[in-house]
């Protein structure tokens, strides 16, 4: 990577790396508190039921049990668990404990006991009589006539149409799509279905809560959103915000599943009830059905294009389910529209979405946030358009893609939950992403070589291809492409602050509310500060995610940390730098204009080479001048500069077993400027792994009673080290004016397009399109059989 900076752009080791490779206590559960109790939640066995009677006497009498809570024991405060800025754009339809159960795994009661075994025994002693209600498990049933009403409680707010189980509804249009279709030479309409995917952070959700010596409620928790959690817990437990102290230690992965106030309220309630520290940690099984997951969607997409490949109209109609509660219901699906359709300059775009309740595991934020679903649909149809028109899929995208200088109006209509702002494209590396990605996978040659249809890989309009090339044995190869964009922070909503304090030895404390969930945020923010101050990274002590000791930050989501938290860090660092230069000017008796910070020193810009070390300057400030150099700054953006990505997949399909093996996955991503290229690559590679699982193996499966039948790693299959293909990651740098040192974001975008890239590659290999995820071997076999039966083989 070329870098005109000394710290930014360098592959520096993580500031928290030492404790992670040595296994030092750093995560939520890595402490022992005397007297700590073990908390556990009794999950509902029914997908939809009311509690007719609940008797906790025997449980309470069990030796070692300190508290048993039911809906009768706690305040009823409607809220959302979504970690979002207030007022949250998600329905307030959730309760700490309720008398109505809306999914298998909903909270019936909670206990705190002296050991895990006693807590589990206590759960077994709670007697519950349920009135079982008919449940809605399928998305399409939610709005049917006579369907049971899942949220019939009078005190819920923000639900679009509770009587018909519609949590949210979105409709936005630019131009007129029907006119656009009339002007099109080719119109393709397809339906796509995506599944429930689980984050599977290797560290499950865990929270420990206690009352400190000042009788304040401390919540030590694995969270991406400490500040939102503080606010929500205070509201739910009806205690003042100032009485709540949220601490975020190292987190073992989140991916959006921890952008949620999940255990903190119930854990806090148990701590208040027992006056003892209480720990609740999910088992892996509970993590599957009592945490969050990706919204399943049915997407109907209709795209119209002229013969020369110019897109005229794009109409996407989505039916999604948010599960039993509406956390992130409107905003995830809003993203499916706002971050997907506008990647192409289509004059007529329409996005309509119903988000419905079902009695199924609750969906929430998950890396990509609505984009993986939308891009699977859109990029598959783009591939079909290219094939039908006889165009190279890469050329079709180049022809239509959004460009530098464009303004995306759809975003203005589809802000995340509130009126958005138009998006100006001030940096765009998508053309280069397509070029370099195509070269890396050897696109042109492989499109031809693997094609069983002709010398150019170009198909005349309307001609069908034969599914199996007899000479190739039972293995077929193909390559496919897909593009995507995302955002960097929520415009006008996400904000962050940073506090920077000088120590007498020339080191700095950087206090940020930002939540490093393994993303390397602490390191990236430290690099931004160090660069601005002209010091080395080891001079930065980064402290993050503590509501008492770090300033506000919305938290880690929406790919906001580098650009928003980083923006605050840069501003605060500039203020500190300016103050340092003033002090140095006084100390050295040299005008400020002639001074600059570099290599842990303040030096003159001119040739006279006078300088002072940061350590001496700090000493001067604190001992002589008696001033604490310390500055803070807040930052937000009025825009959300999108990163761009082109991803290419090479696959090999075994036509006897239906198994799809991904041979190579190339990611070319425009992230603005890479503050730490190595960490950025790592983020991309992990996102790709999750997307390949989304494409091929991962799915939470429910039985007829609404229970998850595969709540374990034995049967929820993620790709392991032995399954991963060759990965190539190309960081394409552009300079984004709104980002610190030109940075945008990278943490989400690479998860958006590998699934359609793989699906498109599979089409190239065997001539079959898959419109449902995951693409399982038996789906491939069935499709090959159907194709054989429906069209004669051609040689």
């Amino acid at each position, binding site marked *: 990577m070329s870098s005109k900076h000394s710290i930014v752009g360098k592959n520096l080791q993580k500031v928290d790396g030492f404790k992670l490779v040595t296994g030092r206590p750093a995560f939520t559960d890595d402490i022992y508190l005397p007297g700590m109790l073990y908390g556990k939640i009794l999950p509902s066995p029914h997908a939809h039921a009311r509690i007719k009677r609940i008797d906790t006497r025997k449980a309470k009498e069990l030796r070692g049990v300190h508290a048993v809570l039911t809906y009768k024991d706690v305040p009823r405060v409607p809220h959302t668990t979504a970690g979002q800025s207030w007022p949250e754009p998600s329905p307030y339809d959730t309760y700490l404990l309720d008398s109505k159960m809306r999914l298998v795994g909903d909270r019936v009661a909670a206990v705190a006991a002296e050991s895990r075994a006693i807590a589990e025994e206590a759960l077994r002693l709670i007697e519950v009589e349920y009135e079982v209600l008919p449940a809605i498990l399928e998305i399409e049933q939610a709005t049917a006539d006579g369907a049971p009403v899942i949220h019939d409680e009078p005190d819920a707010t923000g639900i679009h149409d509770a009587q018909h189980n519609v949590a949210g509804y979105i409709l936005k249009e630019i131009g007129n799509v029907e006119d656009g279709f009339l002007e099109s030479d080719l119109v393709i309409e397809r339906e796509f279905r995506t599944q429930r995917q689980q984050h599977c952070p290797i560290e499950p959700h865990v929270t420990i809560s206690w009352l400190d010596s000042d009788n304040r409620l401390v919540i030590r928790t694995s969270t991406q959103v400490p500040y939102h959690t503080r606010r929500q817990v205070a509201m739910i437990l009806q205690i003042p915000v100032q009485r709540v102290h949220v601490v975020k230690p190292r987190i073992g992965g989140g991916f959006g599943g921890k952008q949620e106030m999940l255990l903190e309220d119930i854990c806090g309630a148990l701590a208040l009830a027992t006056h003892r520290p209480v720990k609740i940690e999910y088992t892996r099984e509970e993590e599957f059905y009592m945490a969050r997951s990706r919204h399943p969607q049915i997407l109907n997409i209709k795209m119209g294009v002229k013969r020369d490949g110019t897109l005229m109209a794009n109409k996407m109609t989505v039916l999604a389910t948010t599960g039993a509660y509406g956390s992130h219901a409107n905003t995830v699906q809003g993203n499916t529209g706002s971050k997907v359709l506008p990647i192409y300059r289509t004059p007529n775009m329409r996005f309509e979405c119903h988000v419905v309740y079902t009695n199924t595991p609750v969906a929430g934020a998950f890396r990509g946030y609505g984009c993986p679903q939308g891009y699977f649909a859109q990029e598959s149809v783009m591939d079909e358009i290219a094939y039908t028109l006889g165009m190279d899929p890469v050329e079709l995208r180049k022809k239509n893609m959004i460009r530098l200088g464009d303004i995306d109006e759809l975003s203005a209509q589809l802000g995340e939950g509130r009126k958005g702002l138009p998006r100006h494209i001030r940096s765009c590396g998508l053309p280069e992403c397509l070029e370099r990605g195509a070269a890396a996978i050897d696109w042109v040659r492989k499109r031809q070589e693997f094609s069983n249809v002709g010398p150019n890989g170009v198909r005349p309009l309307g001609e069908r291809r034969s599914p199996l090339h007899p000479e190739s044995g039972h293995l077929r190869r193909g390559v496919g492409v897909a593009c995507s964009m995302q955002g960097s922070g929520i415009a006008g909503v996400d904000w962050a602050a940073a506090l920077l304090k000088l120590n007498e030895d020339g080191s700095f404390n950087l206090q940020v509310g930002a939540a490093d969930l393994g993303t390397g945020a602490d390191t990236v923010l430290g690099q931004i500060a160090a660069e601005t101050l002209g010091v080395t990274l080891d001079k930065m002590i980064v402290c993050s995610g503590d509501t008492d000791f770090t300033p506000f930050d919305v938290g880690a989501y929406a790919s906001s940390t580098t650009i928003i938290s980083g923006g605050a860090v840069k501003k605060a660092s500039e203020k500190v730098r300016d103050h340092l230069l003033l002090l140095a000017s006084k100390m050295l008796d040299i005008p400020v204009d002639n001074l600059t910070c570099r290599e842990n020193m303040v030096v003159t810009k001119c040739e006279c080479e006078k300088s002072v070390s940061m350590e001496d300057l700090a000493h001067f400030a604190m001992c002589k001048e008696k001033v604490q150099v310390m500055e803070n700054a807040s930052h937000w953006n009025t825009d959300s500069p999108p990163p761009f990505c082109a991803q290419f997949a090479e696959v090999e399909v075994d036509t006897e*077993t239906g198994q799809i093996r991904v041979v190579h996955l190339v990611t070319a991503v425009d992230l603005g400027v890479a503050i730490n290229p190595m960490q950025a690559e790592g983020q991309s590679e992990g996102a790709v792994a999750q997307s390949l699982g989304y494409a091929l193996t991962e799915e939470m499966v429910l039985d007829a009673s609404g229970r998850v039948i595969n709540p374990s790693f034995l049967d929820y*299959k993620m790709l*392991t080290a032995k399954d991963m293909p060759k990965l190539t990651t190309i960081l394409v740098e552009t300079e984004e004016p709104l980002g610190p040192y030109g940075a945008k974001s990278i943490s989400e975008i690479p998860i958006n397009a590998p699934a359609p890239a793989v699906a498109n590659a599979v089409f190239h290999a065997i001539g079959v399109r898959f419109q449902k995820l995951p693409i399982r071997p038996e789906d491939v076999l069935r499709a090959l059989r159907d194709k054989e039966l429906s069209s004669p083989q051609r040689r």
Partner: protein
Amino acid sequence: MFDHIERFYRPTTLREALLLLRKVGKHGRVVAGATDIVTQADRSSRFLIDINHLGLSYIRGNNRGCLIGATTTMAGIELSPVTIAFAGGILAKAASTCGSIQNRNMATVGGNLANASPAADTAVVLLALDAQVRVANSRRSRKIALTEFYSGPHRTVLNGELLREIIIPALPGGGRLGWSFQKLGRTETDISLVNAAAGLQIDARGRIKWARIALGAVGPTPLRARIAEDLLLGNTFNEDLLARAGEAVMREVSPIGDGRASAEYRREMSGVLARRALRECATQAGCKL
């Protein structure tokens, strides 16, 4: 999770273990690798008997066959020069696919058999190798053919007995043997969706003198595809015979559908894996198609 365990026994002789087993009866669980016990959290157990110190971890092989102690780990079988050399190494290969390295370092072949999963990889190979198991309780010791060992899904004929040894008889004499183990999973370290083990002996004229095909995860227990075996015996190995053998296997199996795969897919894959296994056997046996 195991708070109800009152005692953890570590006997050092087989006799001691068998007496303990009789004493604790249905309140006791035998611990070998522990990999199946812990995940099946049986709350009724009160006693655990660790059988890893009875001298039952060994692999001995000669031209009269192989003897494998029940507490030999999968890793032990995977890496033993004896099993790598025996029968084309298919037992070592099967062991090497039993989960991750961590699993294989603990899981034992005896535990794998006694747990009686229909998908157990070692069971399928051992069926193809005509294996027997030696079991014992405090009163008697007996040998059971592996084909008689399973009484249903996750059920064996063990009656208060300990599985102590696996006995693999000598392979057919005269050379020209070929072996294969095939496995299908959703990912590389998956439990088998379908697995197959096969052995063929083919004479110089391409006639099949000896045939074994065993499959797992396609019936209530691991099974021998005897109809397919009979179809092969005495006939010349060729593409047509291979295809017919595959079809016979598909008719012989009785898979169920579950969250991992549908019954139809398993049935179809039993044919695919059987054909692939037989083809590999034939190639190894020196028969060119």
